[in-house]
């Protein structure tokens, strides 16, 4: 397994940029995935993603808010206000059936792509 090159196994700083570029392309799917189980509000989504990666990866909040707006506009997610009385009212997001379908499709697409990339990165001389 150790012979299998992973994307961005180069210098540390360039690998960071590479990984976050790659991840940014999947922000929509990641957010949809976070919302699969339960409705959450913005900071909760941010925190879930941050904590799930042990703080390794933080989606920029500006990116996240843009994602929420796009997902709502596309009908993949719905927003509604919670009824907190103290502090700020929270805007919750709920995944729609369309959102679940898109999530499933994106996961399938990713799995397929990942397989292809792994194969291509592992091409040996003899196999040419």
């Amino acid at each position, binding site marked *: 397994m150790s012979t299998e090159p992973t994307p961005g196994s180069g210098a540390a700083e360039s690998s960071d940029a590479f990984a976050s570029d790659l991840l940014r392309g999947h922000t929509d799917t990641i957010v949809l995935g976070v919302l699969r189980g339960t409705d959450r*509000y*913005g*900071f*909760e989504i*941010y*925190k879930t993603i941050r904590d799930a990666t042990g703080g390794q990866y933080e989606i*920029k*909040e*500006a990116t996240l*808010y*843009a994602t929420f*707006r796009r997902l709502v*506009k*596309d*009908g*993949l997610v*719905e927003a*509604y*206000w*919670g*009824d*907190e009385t103290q*502090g*700020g*009212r*929270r*805007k919750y997001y*709920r*995944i*729609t*059936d*369309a959102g679940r*379908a*898109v999530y499933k499709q994106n996961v399938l697409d990713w799995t397929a792509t990942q397989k292809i990339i792994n194969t291509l990165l592992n091409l040996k001389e003899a196999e040419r």
Partner: protein
Amino acid sequence: MSDIHRLLDEAFTGVAMTPDLQDLKEELRGNLAARVDELQSRGTDAATAASTAVSELDIPELIAGLESAPTVTSPGAAAAAAMRLHRVRPKPGFVVRASIASVVVLVCALHVVTDSASNPVAGQLWAVGFGLVIAFLVADSLRQETAQRYAMPTVRALRWGIASGLLAAGVGYGGVAVWHLTSTGPLAAAVILALAGIMGLIALGVTQTNRMKPWALAQAHQYMADDRFSRDPAAAARFGMYTVIIWIAALTVFVVLSITIGFAWSWLALVGGLLVFFLVLSRMLFAPEKGSPGTK
């Protein structure tokens, strides 16, 4: 905690507020409060927590992101995309269940028809089975998701199912009972079953509503009644009392006039009552108000 409100206001100074921006600001407020709570639970003092939380957010960038014009697509493309997104997908499990249940319904119905003459007890049991399977079919169908995730609650779907099952069993068994008419007992039972089903369906139909769905609740939450009676219950109560007074007076005059002059003219009292009633209604509900208690 009051710090975030001040910092948030500062971040939004000089920005022309649109409804979208106002929405963003309120969303940020809730999220900042949550972030401040998290920081404070880790031992940061309140002021530092507030400034950290606000500075972590790149608020100018968020505002800029909202102000940038959204990409415009043609209406046709948008409609096609919406149709693709909101298409209801058939669920294989449901299709299989419905198919099996339909076959079982058919078997039960056949047995009711063939067994009722020779063996009334078996016929009745098959009729019960027929009703049960119909109930399951109806309840299971109603439980299916619609395009959005607002399926009917299970208990309500079950009630619809039971009512339909009662009606189906009643009508089906009633038909067989009439066909092989030996005594009136089975027919009476069938009529009672069908009537119970009909009553159940009526009750469910009358009480069917959207008001428990999340979007209806959200709408109700944001709804601000604009008429006077909703804002000022005391005015509504006063109007109720005026109504009673007007109609008691009108009815009294009507009775008195009917006795003394006769029906030719006494009905005018009721017309007069109606006129006064509507005048009072329009004056109280729609008249311009001066310093009503409803406004701040």
